[in-house]
Every structure is written in structure tokens, then in C-alpha cells.
């Protein structure tokens, strides 16, 4: 699941997989980075510094690169939401149909309670919460990938 999610952000695996963006550099992406002094050339200085800033302005000015980045993020988040809603659609939405075609299932009892009552009255809620919890985690990871992609100091 996680591998697939990461691949949903285009460019990330191809460009930055060998050297993951160092988290430690994140807090001060704007600051001129002294150790990388050799790589700073005039053109980049005139664009107010680091590559991260350039990506950021590409995003803000809607260049083709910026637009592709945003499209990638939107697609990744939408794919995640659709996948999880498909899970709910099958897991919960399939129940009325299942009960309709297999009435014997409705008569099955667990701990003295009929299965439909247990599934709908109790089990449905932890299931929904678990799906929601998974979504929050995975959506935040997608956003973190996007942030890393934009803020990575070097290609």
C-alpha cells in the first residue's frame, strides 16, 4: 500500500528515490546553505535563493512544472479516497444485497444475536472509524511526500 501511494506522486521515485530528501534541512529551506556554497550561481541568487524557493514559485505562478506537481498531489489524494470508499462500498454496501440473496445468513446467530444486527448495530462503527484512521494517516503521508518533493534542496 505504501509503495503504491508513493508512486502516485509523479517524479518522486524517479528523481529523489536514491537520496531521500533529508528531513533535517526542512526547517530552514530559505536560508542560504553555506555547505552547498559551490552550487549557488548568479541566476539562482537572482531568483531569491534555493531550489526549494524556485519550486515554490513555480507552484504559485502555475508554470507547467508547478501544475504537474499539483495534479500529481490531487490525483494521489483522490485515488486514496476512492480506494477507501470502494472498501466501504463493498464492505458495507454489499450487505443488503448479500442478505437479500442469502437469507440463511440473516438467520445465523452469533452469541445469541442474529448476524445482521451484530454487523449493522455494532461492527459497522469500528469499521468506519478504522477506515477513517487509515485515510488520515495515508493522506498525511501523501502531503508529506509532496512537501518533500517541493522542498528538497537538490535534485
Amino acid at each position, binding site marked *: 500500500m505504501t509503495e503504491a501511494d508513493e508512486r502516485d506522486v509523479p517524479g518522486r521515485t524517479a528523481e529523489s528515490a536514491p537520496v531521500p530528501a533529508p528531513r533535517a534541512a526542512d526547517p530552514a529551506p530559505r536560508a542560504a546553505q553555506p555547505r552547498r556554497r559551490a552550487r549557488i550561481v548568479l541566476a539562482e541568487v537572482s531568483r531569491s535563493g534555493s531550489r526549494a524557493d524556485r519550486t*515554490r514559485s513555480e*507552484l*504559485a505562478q*502555475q508554470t507547467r512544472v*508547478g*501544475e504537474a506537481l*499539483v495534479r500529481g*498531489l*490531487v490525483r494521489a*489524494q*483522490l485515488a486514496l*479516497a476512492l480506494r*477507501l*470508499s470502494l472498501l*466501504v462500498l463493498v464492505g*458495507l*454496501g454489499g450487505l*443488503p*444485497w448479500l*442478505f*437479500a*440473496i442469502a*437469507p440463511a445468513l*440473516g*438467520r445465523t446467530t452469533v452469541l445469541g444475536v*442474529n448476524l*445482521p*444486527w451484530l454487523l*449493522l*448495530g*455494532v461492527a*459497522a*462503527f*469500528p469499521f*468506519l*472509524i478504522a*477506515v*477513517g*484512521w487509515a*485515510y*488520515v494517516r495515508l*493522506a*498525511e503521508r501523501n*502531503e*508529506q511526500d*509532496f*512537501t518533500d518533493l*517541493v*522542498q528538497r534542496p537538490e535534485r
Partner: protein
Amino acid sequence: MGNGYVVPAIVAVTLVTVGIGFYGLRLARTTSDFLVASRAVSPTWNAAAIGGEYLSAASFLGVAGLILKYGVDVLWYPVGFAAGYLALLLFVAAPLRRSGAFTLPDFCEVRLGSRRLRKLATVFVIFIGWLYLVPQLQGAGLTLSTVAGSAYPVGALLVAAVVTVNVALGGMRAITFVQAFQYWLKLTALAVPAIFLALQWQADARPAVTPPDGPAFRAATTVVVEHRATLTFPDGDVRQVRPGDRLDFAAGDPVPEVSGTAIDATDWLLPAAAGEDDRGLFRTYSLILATFLGTMGLPHVLVRFYTNPDGAAARRTTLVVLALVGLFYLLPTIYGVLGRIYTPQLLVTGHTDAVVVLLPEAALGGGTAARLLAALVAAGAFAAFLSTSSGLLTSVAGVISTDVLGRGSVRGFQLATVIAGGVPAVLALNVSGLDVSEVVGLAFAVAASSFCPLLVLGIWWRGLTDLGAAAGVLVGGGAAIGAVLVTVLGPPLTGWPATLTAQPAAWTVPLAFSVMVTVSMATRRRLPRGVGTTMLRLHAPETLRL
């Protein structure tokens, strides 16, 4: 009913509501405080407030009543009411917060830049808000007349007045505290008596919920009929009864079968099977669609998201809400099921919405403990009316003050509150025959067929145009509103027409989506110019500080 604790409990809830409101008033100073609580509300408080606002009369009273009457098939109501928050979390929560929109009309303007679409959305917000407010006020009137013997208008007007004054004076900051308090009150008011009820059921040697001979009266009972009905007695005797008729039953007498209720033990216990009636399956799926997708379009739900500091917090808040709401919905089922044993007379009177308030005394006897629990439940029911009405009123008044009156001042908001509260109060006095859960379900269907496609396509699809959005809302939402009006005002229908208008979501939601997409593709030249920038704003994490 002669329970002397009920009225003081209701008065206490009302006073605490107003009291916390005024505590909040001391903190509310600016227009921003009034409208969005200055965004200084912590996620836990916010989640409890959202939960408190969401759990309405339909959840607190209606769900248990429906389960008592119809059994397993209506368990989809609580599941759908909770799952609505999952749909909201997956598709709407974070981007909506990032859009910076405070209301649905705001979102239309941010995303599509159209003033006319904004006006259309305003009309729908007000319609859905009022459609949802009327049954809340009605529920209050009916509950107060059940537990305290007052006239029907007293409860409805009391709730309308308290809520209007509170919202007008305290604004939303106050409401956040009030709502959070009321979530916990509602949970306690159902959970504590439920524990006692379960213990009582154990002590009574676990009487069967669906005895082989059908439900029976446990004690001698006199039933006063409230609605015209046809009763079929087990010995084959058929009797027509009219309102006001008195029927005496001895302990152990079987409960007669009432026309129109799923009193047959198998129907009640087991889900609809295939073949016998496809309309049952259609109704179930329509209900699932309406509740899953309708929550995100309810005006009082969306307003709350603006009080989160950023998109990620909006997501986490929604998850907490889902957990809180899911926890609550475990409880009404217990009341509905035990109601089969202890309050079978409600099946004869048809007044099943009263099961939650009547069950504690019916099951536990008339002792002090039972009466205190009954008072607690009544207080919880009042908390439900007050909190949902407050939330609805805040959002309808907010829309009226900014989009209809065109003033952003505190005074304008107060004037709008009086208008927004007055209209449903008058309506509630004149239409006492509506069924609480049915009308709430219709409000969900209208929201699912108008605002759900607008939000989902607006957030995830660049190709949406203002004309496409307007056409989808008008056709889908209009069809749903038409179905509502036919159901509420029209002649009684039977067969498929009745099913299609009583549970319209299964055809109006796909209709709204397809019209929105088709018209948008046909009017591609009207694509808003800054759509890329808007998408970036909706989806990019705030940590980038773009």
C-alpha cells in the same frame, strides 16, 4: 405522566445552555468572534461540538423509535448518519478548510467565482436548514407533551425562543462550548439508563425479544389510540380503531398486529429478502446513498470546519467526530430492542418516537431511581433539540446576514437570527402531522442531490464550470425538493411512485452528478481562469506557506 423530576431537568438543561452561552458572550467581542469563534477552538472541543450539533432529535428519539417499529432494516439510519462523516473526511474536510470558505455560498464564489451561483446556493442552504429545523421544533413539542403533559406548541416555541435568543446574543463562540457540553450530556443521558435497562433485562431472566407467539404485554395496560388504524388480533379478529378509543389489555395478552408496522417477528428480525419486494432493497440503497452523501451538504456541519486552524486539523477533527458519533449510535438500538419487550403499547398507538423517554419508567418501575433516569433521558432529548437547532440557526442566520441582508455587522447577524428562527417556528406550529425521521431523511436527500456533487466535483475536478454547477444543483436538488413536497403535501401514493418520492436519493444523486458533468463539458469555455491556483490552494499542505 406524573414524573416530578422531568420538568426541573428540562429547565436545568435550558438554563445551563443559556448560562454557558453567556459565559461565552463575555469572550465574544468582535464580528469574527461571533461568526467563527476566532478560530481558537481546540480539535477535541470542536469535535465534541460538531457531534453535539449533529445528534438531533432524529438520532436521539427517532432512530430508537424506528428500530422498535421496523427492526433490522432501519439500522441503516444510524450507520448512514455515522458513515456520512467518513465521506466528509475522505472527500471534503481538508480541502474545504483550505479553501477558506465559511459557508457553502462562499465555497461557490471561491471555486467558481460566480455571484449568481452563490445566490442559488443561498436559497438551498436556507431551504435545507428550515427543512431540518421544523422537525426539531416538532420533536420538542411532542416530547414535552409526552413527558410533562403540556400543549404541543409550548415545547416547540420554548426551544425556538431559547435557541434564537442564545444564538443572537452569543454567536458561535458560545455555541461551541454549548454544543460540546451537549454532546456529553446526550451520550450520558442514553448510556446510563441503558446500563440499568440491560441489568433489568438480565434480572427479568432475559425475556425473549421476539417470542414465538409475537410480542405480548408484560403488565396490564390501557392504550389510548392516537391514529386511525386497523388492528388484527391473534384470534383473527379485525378491528378498526379511531383516535380516542381506549383498549384494555391484561398482563400476558398478545399485542395486536397494526396495519403498516413490521410487527411480524420475522420481518422485524431479518433483513428484506430478494424477490418478495424489490422496493425494500431500493429503499435501503436509497437511504444509504442519502445519508452517506447528505451529511457533507448540511449547512450546519460545514460551518464548523472553518474553526479548525488548518486542513490537517480539519481531517483529524473529522476522525474524532466519526468516533464520537459512532459511539453514540451504539445506544439507540438497545432502546429500540428493549422497547419490544417493555413498551409494546407504542406499537398500537403508533407513537414509537416516545420509546426513549418512556422506556426507563416502563422497564424499571416507578421508583425514584427510575424517575431520575427518565428525567435524565428527557434532559438529553432537550439537549438534542437545543443543540441541533442552535447549529442550524447559526448557519442559516449567517447566510441570511451576509447574502440576503448584505451586512456583516453583529446587529445584522442578530436580525438575521430572528428571521431564521421565526419562520420554522411558525411552520412547526402549523404542520404537526409530519414524521420526524422522515423529514430529516428528506433533508439529507436534498443535501446529497445538491451540495454533495457541487463539493465533490468542485474539489476534485478542474472541469467544473459555473453553469454546470448551477444546472446540476437545480436539476438534482430541484428533483429532490419536488419529491419532498409531493411526500409532505401531496396525495398519498402507493407502489413505486411512493417509494421513488419517499426515498428519492437513489435517482436524484446520480442525476445531479451527470447533469453537472455534462453541462460543464458543454460549457468548457466558461472554465474559471484561476482554476490551477484554486486547486493548489485547496490541496497543498499549509506547511509549504505558499
